């Protein structure tokens, strides 16, 4: 199981992340200060680091530079309450691999972490399987058993995204940003309407929907 280091000074957030990541099967260690985080991270045991920016002792960027200076190429996800483009650039320039603005959805943190852990292993899958569906990415075809399901362009993109995150909740913000390439849509009912259109096409009549609404979070496609 992948080992993840969490460096976060806010106790509740740190505990929440520890329990949440342990709950989905990661081996988690946590540090509450910058120097502790840099110390723990230096020996290379971790597959990913979740690093808060504002830390006592040493800030997240300094920890990150210390890790990179010590030759650690471990993927680092920076957490911050600062959401200015220049901050983002600063973080990525310092060697961060991704950047998540607080308050983030835990579902999104999980998704980003999975991407970081897969890094270096290119996605060679051309056919995704989820919820009894077969999604052929090359021919852009979806089949349920022998029946082919005709999907509009955006419906296909939505299904592909849900299938890549099958069994996990994804938020409306993630869908708005990643499927529609614009977070504006997350503030409207666009995501909801498209999910309903997709449900009508992929669900078998009379059955429970393959796409579950996770109240307060978003949507989840069955495995």
């Amino acid at each position, binding site marked *: 199981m992948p080992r993840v280091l969490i460096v976060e000074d806010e106790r509740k957030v740190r505990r929440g992340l520890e329990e949440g990541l342990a709950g989905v099967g990661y081996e988690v260690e946590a540090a509450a200060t910058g120097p502790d985080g840099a110390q723990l991270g230096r020996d290379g045991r971790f597959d990913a680091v979740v690093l808060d920016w504002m830390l006592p002792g040493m800030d997240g960027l300094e920890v990150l530079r210390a890790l990179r200076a010590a030759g650690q190429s471990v993927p680092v996800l920076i957490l911050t309450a600062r*959401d*200015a*483009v220049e901050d983002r650039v600063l973080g990525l320039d310092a060697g961060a691999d991704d950047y998540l603005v607080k*308050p983030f959805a835990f579902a999104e943190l999980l998704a980003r972490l999975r991407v970081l852990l897969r890094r270096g292993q290119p996605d060679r899958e051309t056919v995704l399987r989820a919820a009894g569906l077969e999604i052929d990415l090359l021919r852009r075809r979806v089949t349920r058993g022998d029946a082919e399901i005709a999907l509009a362009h*955006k419906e296909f993109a939505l299904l592909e995204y849900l299938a890549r995150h099958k069994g996990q909740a994804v938020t409306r913000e993630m869908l708005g940003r990643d499927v*529609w390439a*614009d*977070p*504006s*849509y997350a*503030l*409207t*009912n*666009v995501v909801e*309407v*498209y999910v*309903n*259109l997709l449900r009508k096409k992929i669900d078998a009549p009379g059955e429970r929907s393959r796409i579950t609404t996770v*109240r*307060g*979070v978003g949507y989840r496609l069955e495995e």
Partner: protein
Amino acid sequence: MTRSIRWRLTVWNAVGVAVVLVGFAALVYWLAGRAFRQHADRTADTGFRLVETDPRVATKPVERAKYWVREFDEHMGVRAAVYGPDGAALAAHPGVTGRGLNAEVVGRRSETDPEGQRWRLAVESVRAGDQELRVLLMVPLRDQDADLAALGRAMLIAVPIGLVATAGLAYLLARGAVAPVEQLRKTTERITADRLHERLPVRNPDDELGQLAGTVNTMIGRLERSFAEIKRFTADASHELRTPLTAIRTVAEVALAGTPTADELRDIIESVLEECGRMARLTEQLLALARDDAGVVPRPLERLSVAALAREVVDTMRPLADAKGVTITFAEPAPPAGVRGDPIRLRQVVVNLIDNAIKYTPPGGSVRVGTAEADGTVRLTVVDTGEGIAAEHLPRVFDRFYRVDKARSREQGGTGLGLSIVQSIATAHGGTVSLTSTVGVGTEAAVSLPAGPPA
């Protein structure tokens, strides 16, 4: 203090007056000197004419010459000498011969004798019968010099006194002129954030100070409105954040007080998450608004086509309209109008306007989206056949957190910031947004942006 306007005005005034006074005194002194010399010359002219018009000079030159030399000395205090055609003196005052003066050069000049006495020396040829005599006259300048010296002394006293007097006057004038400015400053200083309702007194709105006071008053008025706006905004924002916080607190406390079942707990946590989502969206929008207000451009501007953007948003949102039974159409313009802008922010304008239009249009209605270009302006219009907005609400719909139907908007997940965001994005792009509406007929929202190069 030495750098105050009052002092500078006084000093400049004094310097100016000093230059004028000294120049004037010098001119008067010089003119007086010239007048005195001319007076002496006229005395000499009189002398020459007396000799010239004496008929006996031609017949008895030596005798008459002596007579005139004596006569001049006794009655005019003028020393004289008369020379014959051969240059020999016919008669001469001892003060002339004693100094060895001759009459070879005709003309006038000023001379100082060894005793320090100044004279005006005049030499002229005078015809007497058939011979040419030379007459030399020495007119004393003693009295004139005394007068000139007295004038000089008077000026040396009068000029400094005049200078001091005008400087003092200038100081008083400057102080008088600057006093209202000082008054203005003191009053302005008294007006602090909590006394913005006060205004400066305007004595004469047409003079410079009155205009300054008027300008400052206008500025205070703007400040007052901004402060009121900020106060209202802060109150509204905290209210908006308190609402979800209250919801979270209530459900959590109630849950803790009772013995909820697992399903009930789940329901409680889900509702807490919903409220968190609402707060997260709200803070994100507030941040975006603050950024637009501060004029921060998060991304470089691009050339883009509003028509293409609108078409894309209409296509994306069509299922939303379909689901509600509302028809949405897009009128293709030709050629597509281009602007310079941030595609993400401008898309948000289109999304917000269309989202509103669909939300407030009943099933069976329609939403028409169109773009047009005229006079260097690209215009995006979203026309709906919705319920419309009453006239009393129209002026305030762009205000932050202003909702026409508070309960319903919140229920539909609205933050009350949608149109404020549209306006601030349009403004940040150098454009405007307007809303016209008739209750029961529909609403037209129009965004105008300055046309850029075609995309």
